[in-house]
């Protein structure tokens, strides 16, 4: 295990992120701002609503925000654009010269980078949460949320790779990062818990993969020990990995044909 190139890529990703503390600090600083904003918003909103909105009190909402925002901020926001650029200018072809799977290798490296940011963000979030309210509402939920956070980042990465693969066929595919981000905002439950959406919209969101990236860990951390959500994440992760691998395999063939 320790000797595979993918593990090397993963640890290299960790090292790379730690070697750029300024960049990391900016990201985590921004996360802190988001926490201030959303904790203020939800405090005011719950006060105005008699303390509880759709089953969420201020304490639940705060931990919800910490998990949802933390998991999203840990992944590179413009990954789709970056991969799209690499495909567009042919840099990806250089990776293809190595005797490893391009997608797996790159995803391992991204995962390494994301893990560092995730740990930093969640630690800061934990301190913030403990200081402004109290511990997460349920221990079981907390225990479930930890693997869910990792799975959320994994799902997010693989989904971005699946989206980005479109760049093999469509020139402007890289611009979809923006729309992807918005889908995560709304259908992924990043801005609002899915329970706060109108029922029809929430129903659609539960059928799509986006909710695995933010809603699932957030729902768990906000005190709802719904273990079956982890199975949903795992299922989607398998589907998404398969989709990304298949899309890149097809795309690489096309690149070889047209790229010469």
């Amino acid at each position, binding site marked *: 295990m320790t000797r595979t190139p993918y593990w090397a890529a993963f640890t290299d990703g960790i090292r790379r992120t730690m070697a750029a503390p*300024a*960049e990391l600090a*900016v990201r985590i*600083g*921004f996360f802190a*701002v*988001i926490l*201030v*904003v959303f904790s*203020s*918003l939800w*405090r*005011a*909103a719950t006060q*105005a*609503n008699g303390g509880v*909105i*759709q089953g969420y009190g201020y304490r639940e909402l705060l931990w919800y925000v910490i998990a949802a925002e933390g998991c999203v901020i840990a992944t590179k926001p413009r990954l789709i654009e970056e991969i799209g650029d690499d495909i567009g200018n042919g840099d990806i072809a250089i990776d293809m010269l190595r005797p490893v799977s391009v997608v797996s290798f790159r995803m391992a490296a991204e995962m390494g980078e994301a893990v560092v940011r995730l740990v930093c963000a969640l630690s800061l979030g934990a301190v913030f949460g403990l200081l402004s309210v109290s511990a997460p509402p349920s221990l079981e939920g907390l225990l479930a949320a930890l693997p869910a956070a990792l799975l959320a980042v994994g799902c997010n990465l693989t989904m971005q790779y699946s989206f980005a693969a479109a760049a093999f066929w469509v020139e*402007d595919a890289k*611009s979809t990062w*923006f*729309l992807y981000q*918005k889908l995560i*905002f*709304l259908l992924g439950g990043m*801005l*609002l818990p899915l329970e*706060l*959406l*109108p029922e029809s*919209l929430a129903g659609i969101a539960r059928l799509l993969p986006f909710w695995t990236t933010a809603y699932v860990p957030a729902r768990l951390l906000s005190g709802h020990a719904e273990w079956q959500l982890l199975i949903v994440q795992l299922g989607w992760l398998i589907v998404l990995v398969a989709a990304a691998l298949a899309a890149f395999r097809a795309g690489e063939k096309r690149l070889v044909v047209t790229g010469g």
Partner: protein
Amino acid sequence: MRIILSTFKNSLIEAWTNRRSFWLQVSIMLANDLVWVLFWILFFERVSTVRGWDRSRVLLLFAILTTVAGISLGLLANARKIGQLSAGGELDAALALPIHPLAFLLVRRVDTGLLGDLFFGPILFVLAGEPTLERTAIFIFGSLCGAAVLVGFLVAIGALTLFIGGTGEQADLGFQTILILASYPVDVFGGATKLLLFTSVPAAFISGLPTRLVDDWQWTTAAALLTAALVFASLGVRLFNLGLHRYSSGARWTRA
């Protein structure tokens, strides 16, 4: 002024040369703004009012914010790039011309994507802001003041790069911070944060105060807004001018 307008005209022509990408970027930005509107509509389905802010007021705030962003980040796109430009030694061209370098830099580049905001803001105001002649006039006044505050703030934190070095990361963080803080009603924030929004991260002047003015015109509030606009604009100019003394034109002496 004529010079500034001519420069500006060139920037617009330049942005317009790649029409396909122009429309793509504009529509992406419009989609982005629509998602935010949707967010607020959904939010206020579940929550009636938050400290005096209801749906229509928040939409008015959002209309002002997007207009301000369209002006400061779309039309004057270099406002948030001052840090990067200084660190990369890219002020040279502007310094070689007989006009004020900051004025030239600000109009030198138009960001096509954020121009979408400039369309969106006024349209949202017309649709959701109950426009009357008076409200429209205040909307324009408030947006212009907000833009002056935002540009001044962005230039000031960008110009800090000239003093503290680095490649302008602090400017990027400041830019993201002020925008997200300005996206929410100022009154949801308490104590210390609120004080911050009226002083060092002047998000309140960008969206909150202008919104309040449109709904409820008070001469004192208007005066405060105008003062903030002047203070931050001159702060930006002052810091930039001072920083020029330390400008190193991107000379790479590190590790020399």
